[in-house]
């Protein structure tokens, strides 16, 4: 089922309960948290959407862009070493996709659903790289699918507004790896730094805050 949005706005609900746009409790929290930060420095790790860039720019942000989602969805071979019996994900090759960003310089990173598309063995290094780029008090924003959501890996997300998310389509591709649990996220991030927001979209919105 494709999502089409009319001029009256998103009212159609998909099989999985996805709306084409929805208020985001995590974004609500995030921008309130950053209300005294006039010029946040943001890294967007999703596909380039002008809508998202516009939201960031009108928020006064300096924006860095590096699409990590599309190469994963394409299953680019350069990320895989298939010389052995078991394919091995080349984490270093993947990390090379990150833009040149100084350590501890970013205010927010939008990781979107990259973790749902990555093999488990790559999570710690990728999250570690993200967290190393965040300044004290910085926030990593991720979307994680709920275990009951079997399909939708190929959905693209963008910001419809400062506090609302939208998705391009429901998506039909099954997720390549098991769902990440809340316990998994706590293993990946420093204790006490993770906020998880439940939604009706089949995704959890997860914020990881670097303690000041």
């Amino acid at each position, binding site marked *: 089922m494709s*999502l*089409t*949005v009319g*001029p*009256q*706005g*998103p009212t159609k609900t998909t099989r999985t309960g996805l*709306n*084409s*746009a929805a*208020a985001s409790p995590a974004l609500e929290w995030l*921008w309130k948290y*950053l*209300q005294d*930060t*006039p010029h946040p420095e943001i890294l967007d790790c999703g*596909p*380039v*959407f*002008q*809508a*998202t*860039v*516009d*939201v960031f*720019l*009108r*928020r*006064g942000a*300096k*924006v*860095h*862009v*590096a*699409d990590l989602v599309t190469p994963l969805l394409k299953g680019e071979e350069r990320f895989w070493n298939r010389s052995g019996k078991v394919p091995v994900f080349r984490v270093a090759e993947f990390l090379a*996709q990150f*833009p040149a960003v100084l350590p501890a310089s970013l205010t927010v990173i939008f990781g979107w659903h990259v973790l749902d598309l990555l093999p488990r063995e790559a999570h710690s290094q990728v999250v570690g790289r993200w967290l190393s780029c965040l300044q004290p008090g910085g926030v990593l924003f991720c979307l994680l699918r709920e275990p009951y959501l079997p399909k939708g890996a190929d959905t693209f997300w*963008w910001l*419809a*507004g*400062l*506090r*609302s998310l*939208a998705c*391009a389509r429901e998506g039909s591709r099954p997720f390549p790896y098991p769902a990440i649990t809340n316990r998994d996220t706590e293993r990946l991030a420093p204790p006490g730094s993770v906020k998880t927001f439940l939604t009706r979209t089949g995704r959890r919105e997860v914020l990881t805050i670097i303690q000041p």
Partner: protein
Amino acid sequence: MWWEKKSGPDPGQRPHPLSAPAARPESWAEPLEPTPRVSDMPNTIQNQTLLGQSMVLHGELTGKEDLLIEGQLDGTISLPDHCVTVGSHGEVKAEIHARQISVLGTVNGNLTAREKIEIRKTGQVVGDLVAAAIAIEDGAYLKGSIDIQREQNQAAARSASLPPAVKASA
């Protein structure tokens, strides 16, 4: 407060690649012009010098004409008062300084435009963008940063650097 209005425009609309952004919240302290639509951009295909598909150029390129690159260029491009278009076949490894820059091909290097930078959906840019306005068509590839520098900011910076007598007469 950095908040958007709750009664803002429909948030669910699929962002057409060239669509204008949603209405700007009044409470934002530093209102910015909406990023222009790509279709609003002036046609830069006319009256310009062409670097053809079979051409390969290494070095520094300066001039007083608009430039369309369909070949390969490696070096620097400085056309501060004119437009540079990297065509769909163009492959550029260079820092580009121009009044306006349009990318339909591949660019590896930083782009600085006094007015606008646009990246079409076929465009691929690895580099940092600095301009007064930036339009990125959905489907374009960008790896780098985006920095908006408004003309008024640039003018203020220029004014601040002028000696007092010049300021008074300006």
